[in-house]
């Protein structure tokens, strides 16, 4: 896979590398990476610090007395001692929120990307709905969510419940539908960009050979936009995983997600730096894993370059 891709882009790369050596590129990239990482290192460090070090002056980059209590407390593992436990006793453990997020975010991401990809193909190849349809879809991202939350809540918890006998409030399905609906605009627009870049004659050749449109869509076009598809999936997953305001308004107990849980910790216990930092670190782990898995495809999956004229 690696070599195949390299062969594909070698010529284009020669131009770049001639001027800017790999060593210089590495140094520049390393500097950027370190700058980017510094704030993360700071919360990572806070998450291992005991309560008296959270606001220590002068601050230390590494915890002087590293502890795991901030993490243990989140899942109620063991019996952490001291002030931390008293501060956290009013907040719930994060197990349920974590499980909910692990169900809601991946399902709505797959649904959003699939629906968006199909619609993007229709828009890109057949101009279904003209210019209006993709634009109309984009309006879902234009409303300030703070303003949309009230009427949406009214719709979910009153109209749907009373007239259609569908209860979506505080359920997984309710959030999945909403997350799919509010991210599908991105799936559509991002995939449209990638599909537009695939030359049409590749598909036309297959159609002339007698392949059905569905076959062309999934066996010709889909593999060609794989890199874009993974990039879109990752982005939509991030949006769904980190969404805050809608989850806050539409869940109360059963379906709460990780960001809502983080905010509850914030309100329940004031300046609760250590466990909040620990929760922030934990909350980013699934996305980091997803990012790492997908990144292989991002790096090796730039297949557009291999479409031969």
């Amino acid at each position, binding site marked *: 896979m690696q070599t195949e891709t390299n062969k594909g882009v070698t010529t284009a790369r020669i131009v770049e590398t001639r001027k800017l050596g790999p060593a210089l590129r590495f140094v520049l990239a390393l500097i950027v990476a370190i700058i980017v990482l510094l704030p993360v290192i700071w919360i990572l460090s806070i998450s291992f610090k005991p309560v008296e070090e959270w606001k220590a*002056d002068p601050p230390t980059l590494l915890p002087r007395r590293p502890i795991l209590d901030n993490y243990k407390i989140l899942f109620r593992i063991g019996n952490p001692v001291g002030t931390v436990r008293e501060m956290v006793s009013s907040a719930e453990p994060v197990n349920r929120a974590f499980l909910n997020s692990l169900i809601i975010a991946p399902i709505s991401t797959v649904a959003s990307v699939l629906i968006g990809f199909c619609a993007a193909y229709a828009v890109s190849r057949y101009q*279904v709905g003209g210019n209006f*349809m993709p634009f109309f879809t984009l309006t879902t991202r234009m409303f300030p969510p*703070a*303003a949309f939350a009230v009427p949406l809540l009214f719709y979910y918890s009153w109209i749907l419940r009373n007239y259609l006998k569908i209860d979506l409030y505080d359920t997984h399905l309710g959030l999945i539908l909403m997350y799919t609906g509010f991210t599908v605009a991105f799936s559509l627009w991002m995939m449209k960009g990638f599909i537009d870049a695939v030359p049409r004659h590749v598909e036309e050749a297959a159609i002339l050979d007698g392949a059905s449109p569905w076959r062309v869509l999934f066996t010709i076009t889909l593999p060609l936009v794989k890199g874009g598809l993974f990039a879109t999936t990752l982005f939509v997953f991030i949006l769904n995983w980190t969404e805050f305001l809608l989850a806050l308004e539409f869940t109360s107990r059963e379906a709460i997600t990780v960001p809502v849980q983080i*905010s509850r910790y914030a309100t329940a216990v004031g300046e609760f730096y250590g466990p909040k930092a620990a929760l922030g670190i934990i909350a980013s782990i699934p996305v980091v894993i997803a990012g790492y898995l997908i990144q*292989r495809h991002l790096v090796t999956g730039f297949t*557009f370059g291999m479409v031969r004229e």
Partner: protein
Amino acid sequence: MADLVHKPSQANATIRVSRLARIINKETNFQIALVAPLQLLLWFLLIVPTIVVLYLSIIAWQPILGDWTKAPIVWLKNYGDVLSDRVFWAALGRTVAVVTIAVSLEFIIGLGLALLFRGDFLAKRILTSVILYPMMLPWVVVGFTFYLLFLPQGPVNYLLRQALGPGAAVSWFKEPLLAFSTIVLADVWQWMPFMFLILYSGLGALPREPVEAAMTLGANRWHIFRHVILPMLKPIIIIALVIRALEAFKIFDLIFIMTDGGPGTSTESISLYIYRLSFEYQRLSYAAAMAVLILLLVTVITRIAIRPLEYHQE
């Protein structure tokens, strides 16, 4: 005689038409199936809430007044009030400033990084993961992180004191301009990786032939970038900018956590103002009118921005 000539051709035409109809039908079915899920989802989710917002915006109602169906209709009065509201204009201006500054910085850094990462070098994959990390954090966490960094006794002030002497410490969240800068900085830190990811994917997706052709013709690197790569990248650039700008325009969580709009209301964004109007002051009609105005404004601007991407008669 004329009949004899006429009949076969008519039969031919009928056959041709029915075959065409079959193909069209098949094509249409395919196209409908492609967009149907999207349409169903959007109509199910959006149409009723949109009507509710529009209705709320033309009545004079607050939850305290009881049944909203009995509230008097005042038509455009709420809209007039919004347009003469100084706080609204200030929040709007501030939001536009955040969007412009943050998104420009994200784009410039992201494009630079994307070009840097086109070449091969040591540990490229790990460094890519590291640089993508900030966008994987929830907003709430990013806000909290930057809040900790810029606390009076936090690490940024500590470094300033070490470098410039004890007087160099700054109360970041007490000065409007400084508070504003920390918010922009947090937004850039979190979303620069997104620009990088999109532009990097876009660069990788470009066909090589035009670049090779330009090389053969002896164009230099700058010319290839400016006249070959950049125009081909334009659709992706526009999409990335529009997506980012739309999201940045709704900035809420970061400000909510870091400054809560303060000092005073000097860092209040339009989303935060609407949130306050709805949930703190309970002025739902007024907030709805403001939301509709914002939607109109954003719609017009977005419409202009994506014009180059639209399909014209071919």
